[in-house]
Each structure stands twice: as structure tokens, then as C-alpha cells.
């Protein structure tokens, strides 16, 4: 029962802290306008500096340019970055998800070509997985890839929820190469140069009015030959699962990164006499505090597991559910206590309240997460599946009839 750093970890933390103290004045602001090219450039430069000191990709093996450290060291770096008031690498998607995917599924040539520029912030990556009709049901992607006579692949389709697409150099794109197979088969993962002809990026405005995500339209985009395939042709679902596993690890460990702490929320209401007077407000604060303290210690527990070499299971989706719902309750409480002025825009709490509905469905809607945990952790039987033993093209046709009927 020990939350303290080991002596080695304490030394590491001290080194990180010292370096950050010396260089924090060189860092851009931790938050900024992600549509402002000057700010983006500053963040890329900062990632390069961090990468030279091995403060991004902390768990990356040394053969790919990382220090090959453990998850606790990654957490130590994250904590020290927050404490120093500086941002981490700009390419969170590339560093946390796409890099590992390339390490697992890429050819030697692909690893050679892509990993170093990714780590250094020279080439930012984005994730072209979800589509308007394939969110929770990711294997239902309709984006089509066809091989031309010259062996090159041509992609057409529409992707959504793409973070960083507006300045990414490459996208990792899940596309359907064979519609005569059942839905999980016939998918292939491609590397798509985001500056290719036919790629259009359009910001998706959230409730707050900000474009946190993008839509990406692919209109007969030529991506090159098989050197642009990540893994096997027809093996796209396996590559996608690798990414989803790393995503789960990120979510399981990263919830405090959003700043969702009981201390912060209590601070926003502590000054009001309403807390002493109106029924239910303190009970709501207690709910929020208990849930977020639990998630904090669940995170510590999962780190202990990772240190033992065990990967967190699907039950870590529950930490995400807890976090999002507690943060929603906190937003309700804070605006209830502080009144309409808590909703002033731009403003900390209006942004908080606007951000959460989108976060709720990001990374899997709550019912889907609960299904997964129910089936894979509690061993509950699955629901009847109407999309099995049928080719993808037939499935789509049947759905069209269903809607028309």
C-alpha cells in the first residue's frame, strides 16, 4: 500500500522537474487555438524539445527512439508537465495510439519511415476510423478502398471525430476492401497522406462552438500501393483492435488529465452560502467527490497492474463512465450554485458543461461500454446479433429496407 515513488522513480522525477524548471519559459501555453498555425508550430517545436530529452513517448522502446520506461514514469512526466504549467507533445494521437500501432503491425520500412518524425513532432498523425454510420459499431465502416490497375489504392468515404486532422501529415484509415465478406472481415488499414488530392477536412463545431474534431472527406484519394497498407490486406480489424486497446489504457489512466478532481470542483462552490442552505447540494458534492476519488485510486491500481506487466481489462471502460458522469454532475452543481453567470462564454464552466456531452459518446457510448463489460467481465450472454453470417453489402441493403418500411 504505497503511493510514493521508489528511490529510482524519485530520482527520475527530480531530473524531469529540474529540466522543466530550466525550460518552461520556452514552452507555449498549455491551451491555445488549435486552428492558429503559429500556436500549432510552437507546440510542434516544443514536442521536438521534449523528444530530445525523451519526455514524450516515455514508454517507447529504445529501438524506436524512446527510453523504454514504464507507465509510472509516463505518469511522473505527465504530473510534472501539469505542475510546471506546460503542455506535453501536440501529437497525443500519434504518440499514444498510432505509433504503437505501427510498432506492432508495420513493416520494417514503415517503422523506419514513420516513427522518428512522429516522435519528434515533425509529422503529426490523425485517426481515420469512425464514420457517421460507424461509431460504436466501428466494424460497420463504409469507406471503400479499391485497387487500381497500377496496384495503387483509391479511397472514397467520410470519416468523423478526427482530432488534429487540420494539421496532420498522415491519417491511419480503416477502410473496406471487400464488401462480400462479413463486416469484421474485408477491412484494411491504410496510411493516408493528408495532403493528397481528394482529402477535405472540415471542422465539426461542438456545443461550445469550438471545432474540437473534424470530418474528413475522402474523394477517390490515391494513397499509393501496398507500402501504404498497415498490416495485411483484409487484416484491418486486427490493427484497429490494437489501437482500441491502447485507447483503453489511455482512458483508464488519463482521467485526471482533464482536470476532473474533487478539489477543483469543491473550490468552485465553497464560497457560496447556498451550500449550507439548499437541500441536496452537499449530497451532490459528496457524490462527485466519492466517484472521483474512486477513479483516482482505480487509476493508481491500474498503474500497479501495468507495473506488473498486466494490461488493464475492459472493466476500465467503467472508469470512463464514472468520470464523465461525475463531471456532468459537478457541472450541474457548480452552475446551480453560482447561477446563470456560471454559464458566461467564454468561461471555464460553460466550456466544461459544453464539452461533456461530446466526451460522453467519445471512445464508445455508455451502453456499448456496459455491454462489453457485462459480456467480457461478468460473462453475461451477448445479445442476439443480426449482423453475423451475412455479407456487409447485404447487411447494408437490409438496413435500407428497414428504414423504408
Amino acid at each position, binding site marked *: 500500500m504505497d503511493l510514493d515513488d521508489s528511490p529510482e522513480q524519485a530520482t527520475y522525477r527530480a531530473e524531469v522537474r529540474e529540466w522543466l524548471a530550466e525550460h518552461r519559459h520556452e514552452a507555449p501555453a498549455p491551451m491555445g487555438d488549435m486552428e492558429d498555425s503559429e500556436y500549432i508550430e510552437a507546440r510542434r517545436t516544443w514536442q521536438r524539445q521534449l523528444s530530445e530529452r525523451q519526455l514524450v513517448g516515455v514508454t517507447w522502446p529504445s529501438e524506436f527512439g524512446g527510453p523504454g520506461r514504464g507507465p509510472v514514469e509516463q505518469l511522473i512526466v505527465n504530473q510534472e508537465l501539469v505542475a510546471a504549467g506546460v503542455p506535453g507533445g501536440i501529437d497525443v494521437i500519434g504518440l499514444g495510439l498510432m505509433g504503437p500501432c505501427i510498432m506492432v503491425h508495420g513493416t520494417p520500412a514503415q517503422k523506419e519511415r514513420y516513427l522518428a518524425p512522429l516522435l519528434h513532432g515533425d509529422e503529426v498523425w490523425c485517426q481515420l476510423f469512425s464514420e457517421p454510420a460507424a461509431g460504436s459499431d466501428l466494424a460497420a465502416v463504409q469507406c471503400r478502398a479499391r485497387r487500381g490497375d497500377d496496384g495503387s489504392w483509391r479511397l472514397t468515404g467520410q470519416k468523423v471525430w478526427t482530432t488534429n486532422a487540420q494539421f496532420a501529415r498522415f491519417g491511419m484509415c480503416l477502410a473496406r476492401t471487400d464488401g462480400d465478406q462479413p463486416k469484421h472481415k474485408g477491412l484494411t488499414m491504410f496510411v493516408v497522406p493528408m495532403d493528397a488530392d481528394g482529402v477535405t477536412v472540415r471542422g465539426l463545431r461542438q456545443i461550445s462552438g469550438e471545432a474540437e474534431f473534424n470530418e474528413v472527406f475522402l474523394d477517390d484519394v490515391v494513397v499509393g500501393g501496398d507500402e501504404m497498407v498497415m498490416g495485411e490486406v483484409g487484416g484491418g480489424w486486427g490493427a484497429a483492435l490494437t489501437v482500441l486497446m491502447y485507447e483503453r489504457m489511455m482512458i483508464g489512466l488519463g482521467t485526471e488529465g482533464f482536470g476532473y478532481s474533487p478539489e477543483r470542483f469543491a473550490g468552485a462552490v465553497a464560497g*457560496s452560502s447556498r451550500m449550507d442552505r439548499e437541500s441536496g447540494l452537499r449530497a451532490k458534492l459528496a457524490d462527485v467527490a466519492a466517484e472521483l476519488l474512486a477513479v483516482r485510486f482505480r487509476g493508481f491500481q491500474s498503474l500497479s497492474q501495468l507495473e506488473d506487466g498486466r494490461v488493464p481489462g475492459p472493466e476500465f471502460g467503467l472508469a470512463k463512465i464514472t468520470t464523465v458522469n461525475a463531471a456532468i454532475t459537478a457541472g450541474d452543481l457548480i452552475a446551480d450554485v453560482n*447561477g446563470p453567470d456560471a454559464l*458566461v462564454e467564454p468561461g471555464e464552466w460553460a466550456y466544461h458543461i459544453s464539452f461533456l456531452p461530446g466526451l460522453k459518446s467519445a471512445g464508445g457510448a455508455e451502453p456499448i461500454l456496459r455491454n462489453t463489460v457485462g459480456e467480457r467481465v461478468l460473462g453475461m450472454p451477448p445479445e442476439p446479433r443480426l449482423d453475423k453470417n451475412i455479407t456487409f453489402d447485404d447487411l447494408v441493403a437490409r438496413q435500407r429496407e*428497414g428504414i423504408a418500411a
Partner: protein
Amino acid sequence: MNLELTDEQIALRDAARGTLSRFDSVAAAREALETPGALPDIWPAAVDAGWPGLVVAERHGGIELGVFEAMLVAEELGRTLASVPFIGLVPAAALLSAADHDAAGPTAEGETRPVYLPACPPSPRLDDGVWTVDGLDGERIPAPVVDRSGSDVTVTGTVAWVPDAPGADLLVVVATDDGRPTALVVDASADGVTVTSETRYDATRSMANITLDGAAAVVLDCSEEEIAGAWHTAQALLAAEGVGTVDRALELAGAYAKERYTFGRAIGSYQAIKHELVEVLRRLQNARALLVNVGWAAGASPDDLPMAASAARYSAGHALDFAARSLINVHGGIGATWEHDAPLYFRRAQLSRRLVGGLGLAGDRLADECLARARRTAPRPEPAAVR
């Protein structure tokens, strides 16, 4: 016993729906977020429809209908997210009419537009006699105070987040006069009056923060019950407006749940989605039943009005919250973007629950009414169970 709408009530509701169908308020609400003030001017149509005189006595040229009829109109406003001064207008018009004030006639005609500055009567549980209004920072603050020391009656105080105040001609203020509640009329353009228009999160909701600094006032001849009734009327109108919004949000969510497929099935066939929509329906039906309770109490049992109005506000407000989030959930990520209208309903829900005391005060009020009754009456014997 008959709780069905009368033919006249149905006609009034249908007429309101017809009037509002001429404005695409939802599209306008989206535009207004980009271009503040881009909302259509529905006021002339509201005047044509007779809404300013809805609760004004016939002797002042009004239609002399009740709170319940005004709630039917408010429900239609909520359904369309229409921006028109109504919730601030009706309680003000009712007080002017009850006091036989000169402005009652021009109000009924739509020539003069008064606005009500909401003041909450003391809790029957605490029974401390303190009337409170919304403060700027979410605190409850004492209602404005009357000063009779000079030749004129004046009033001093602050009331924050007053719905429909911008552009109003007259302020109907509830203040305390030597501790007793008094309704007064203040000219919005008088010396010592500051009306600062504010927008928060929901561009369709016009509000102002109002400061009165020794402003000249005319005392209205209203009873304490009438003054308290204005607060409960405002609660009931917000409740009714919320019910209209919930109704529309459920329509939108239900339609999408039938046409959107995932894992080979329409998402409405999954219990998670289906039961969430049924929960919206359950809350909608309960809130609507509580509107009927208000209508009955306002007409036949004024002692029950505080409890009925508080229950309706509390229930409808939480139903609106739930429905607005549900509308987003059913649509998945896209529901949290401006690709869809869902954010408009969400923003409406977020601001509404914090207005005119907020849902927390309404809930506390409801509980306090229950407790005060229980403390007044002897405990009832255990009723006979149905066996």
C-alpha cells in the same frame, strides 16, 4: 370530474401553434448564436394573438383567462424555442390588472409592455418572513426595499437575471415596505433605474440585471396572496414552457432511434435506448399532469398553488434536463455538434434550470410546503390498504 382540455382551451393552443408556425424559431435560434440579435420579432404576432391580455380582466380590455391558459401558450413557445416576452409579461399583467392600474389596458392592447421582477415569498418551513430575489452570483438576496421617507415613494435594490426585461416599458417590482411585501410599478426609463441586458448560454432567452437606486415607484393595490401568486405563476409558466420543449425533444429523439441502425438493428430496438426514451416519456407525462394540478389549484384551490407550482417547476425542469441530454445521447457524438439542433435544446435546458430561483429552490419549496402542512396537521392514521 373532468380534466380534459375544453374546446376553448384546445382552440387557444392550436391558435398559438399556428401563430408560431409562421416563424422558424429553431433555425433562428441557431443563427442567433453567430449573430446575436438575429431573432425574428414575434411580438407583433403575439399582440395580434391577444397574449398580452390573456390574464387581464375584461374590464381592462383583456381576455380574462387563467394561469392554465397562459401555460398552454407557454408550452407552445417551449416547443418551438420561440423568443417572445411572455414569462416576464404574464405575472406583471396579472398584478396590474388585479390592482386596476392604468397600465392594465395598454398592456392588454400590447401598447405598453411590463415585466415582472420575480421575488420569492418566505418559506413556510422557516417562516422567517424574508422575501428574496436572484442575486448576480447565484446567492439569494433580499428583495428591494421601499422608502417612503421622501415626498415620493421610491424603491432600492437589485434583481438579477430577469427574463424578458430588456425593452420592457414598466417594471413590476416586489419590494418590502417595513417588512411587508408590496408590489410597485417603476418606469423603466426613470431616474435611478438601470436595466443591463445580458445573454447567457441560450441566445433565445432575453434577460437583464436590474438595479433600482431610489427609483420613483407607484404602489399597486395587491394582496400578499396576489403578490406571492405572481412568483408561482412564473414558476408554472417556466414549467409549461419546459414541457413543450421536452415534448419536441422526444419527437426528435424517437424519430432518429427508429431510423438509425447499429450492429444490424435500429437503435430504438435496444433496451438502453428504448428505456431511456420511455423515461423521457414518463417524466413528460408526470410533468404534464403537474401542470393540470397547477391549473386546478389556480382556479379552485389557491392554498394548493404554492405546492402545485413548485412541483410542476421541479418536475418539468428535471424532465427538460433529462430530455435534452437524452436527445444528445440517442444521436451519439453527432448530437453534441452543431450538425444537429440538439445543442439548442441542451442550451435551453441549461439556462432554464438556473432562472427564477432555479430548480433547487423549487424543490426546497415543495419539500417545505409538505413539511409545513405535516407540522400543522395531526399525523394521519395509517390508511386502509387495498387488499
